[in-house]
């Protein structure tokens, strides 16, 4: 496409022309994303660390195992802990999304009272620290509940799922509210003229259109939630952080602390990066074309 070029010769009496600002919406080619100066630097540093640290460690004594060896040895245990984190994140996301969509719809209810209450709930959970909500859930909910004579166990991780799903619910509620508000009024009016009632309009016309607007934020939220799951180790759930700490203390080696936590960071990065990369692609796909 041709854009008007700025006049190079000053013309007497001309007015300044505001040229359109263009951000480069074109995605970086995959090769540029994977192989650039930064990834090269990172790769170099990673190689250096991998090569130098064991060498340093071996200076202490020949009998000591190298750090890589120890990391590999603990990988199954830590991997199972990480799987637990993923499970917690998926469950919280599921619970939080279902509740959040409900709450979001209530936020645009025609009834003033319902709107006010759902707004208050959303704001409360959206602006509370995640860790505090987790503490409340872990310490206030009993470990088993008696329903009709049968005891239903309520282990710590389920409480953690509940605790984490509360903020997810609140964020989701805001996303849904915003998305519904962003659907042009005309959609409601045409639905009404076709004889749809409010519930039908919401279910069959408005909500399906919000999906593509919510999806990128929703996936972002999931990535953030996954990275927040190590919080559950503080409230006594045996997740990847708790297991790492146990591993560190079992090995009793001070030089292991940084590589071990770096290792965990890599696990999270490898899991979360594709999600955020995919989100960016979706965002571009759904971006509003004016």
């Amino acid at each position, binding site marked *: 496409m041709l854009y008007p070029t700025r006049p190079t010769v000053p013309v007497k009496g001309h007015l300044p022309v505001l040229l359109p600002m263009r951000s480069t919406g074109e995605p970086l080619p995959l090769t540029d994303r994977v192989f650039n100066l930064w990834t090269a630097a990172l790769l170099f540093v990673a190689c250096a660390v991998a090569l130098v640290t064991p060498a340093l460690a071996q200076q202490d004594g020949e009998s000591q195992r190298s750090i890589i060896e120890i990391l590999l040895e603990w990988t199954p245990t830590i991997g199972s802990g990480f799987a637990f984190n993923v499970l917690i994140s998926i469950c919280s996301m599921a619970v939080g999304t279902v509740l959040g969509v409900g709450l979001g719809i209530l936020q645009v209810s025609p009834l003033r009272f319902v709107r006010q209450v759902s707004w208050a709930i959303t704001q409360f959970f959206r602006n509370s620290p995640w860790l505090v909500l987790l503490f409340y859930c872990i310490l206030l909910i009993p*470990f088993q509940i008696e329903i009709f004579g049968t005891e239903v166990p309520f282990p710590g991780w389920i409480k953690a799922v509940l605790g984490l799903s509360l903020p997810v619910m609140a964020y989701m509620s805001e996303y849904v509210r915003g998305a519904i508000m962003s659907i042009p009024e005309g959609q409601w009016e045409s639905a009404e003229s076709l004889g749809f009632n409010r519930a039908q309009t919401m279910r069959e016309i408005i909500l399906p259109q919000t999906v593509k607007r919510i999806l990128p934020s929703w996936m972002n939220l999931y990535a953030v939630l996954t990275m927040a799951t190590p919080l559950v180790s503080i409230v006594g759930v045996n997740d990847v952080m708790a297991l790492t700490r146990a591993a560190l203390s079992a090995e009793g080696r001070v030089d292991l602390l940084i590589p071990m936590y770096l290792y965990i960071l890599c696990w999270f990065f490898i899991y979360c990066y594709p999600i955020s990369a995919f989100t960016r692609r979706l965002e571009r796909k759904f971006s509003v074309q004016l």
Partner: protein
Amino acid sequence: MSRYITTTLASAALALVCGQVQADQLEDIKEDGEIVVGVKQDYKPWGYLTSDGELAGLEIDLARDVAERLGVELELVPVVASNRMQFLSQGRIDLIIATMGDNEDRREVVGMIQPNYYAGGTNVLAPKSVGLEEWSDLEGRDVCALQGSYYNKRVTQLYGPNLVAFAGIPEVTSALQNGNCVAFLYDNTWIESQLASDEQWADYEMPFETEDPQAWSIAVPLEELDGAYGEKMSEIVTDWHKTGFLIERNEANGIAPSPFLQEMHEKFK
């Protein structure tokens, strides 16, 4: 949708109401065929994780023995100092065997089983180069410690160190070796076993007289202390001392001989 919210709120309320623990826990344990014991997983060699993901250590041996004597299965739940008593009073676990010191404040919350099964005191691990000699040398210095340890308060009040508390032992030892603090305030039993077994502590020492001897107790819920369950546990601990089981397990886990265990063995023999 509002019905959905109501249901959620109602079930949350129900959850808060029905948290009561029934009396006579011993019967319950036997009926379930399982005892749930809270143990440490970051306190080698008392309770630690092996690379296969299994728990091991002196206290895990004790928990096994309890389960065996009751004829039930054993479930181990890793706990830390800051959540073990809540877990017990909530009913998440039936028993604490997690290096827990016996003191007045805690006796109001959980049922401390007598006799005590172990004992430790307070000391510090410090580089020899710092040259600490007296407890009072700590005044105004940065001292690393562990969150939730009972002696943090006492030592701060008596000697006025600048306490830097961490969440776990790996973090503390790393801070100590990086020179972020002059000493690590901890349990003398742990320090002794580290100094004896690990080369990385070759330039470190335990410079002070061990202070504030503190007996460790296994704990049951407070209301069970005088019931059948508490009595049974007390009987088991007495038997551990009497038969020398504790001394034997102590040695098997590579811990330096404990004068306390010897003394108790003589007493109950």
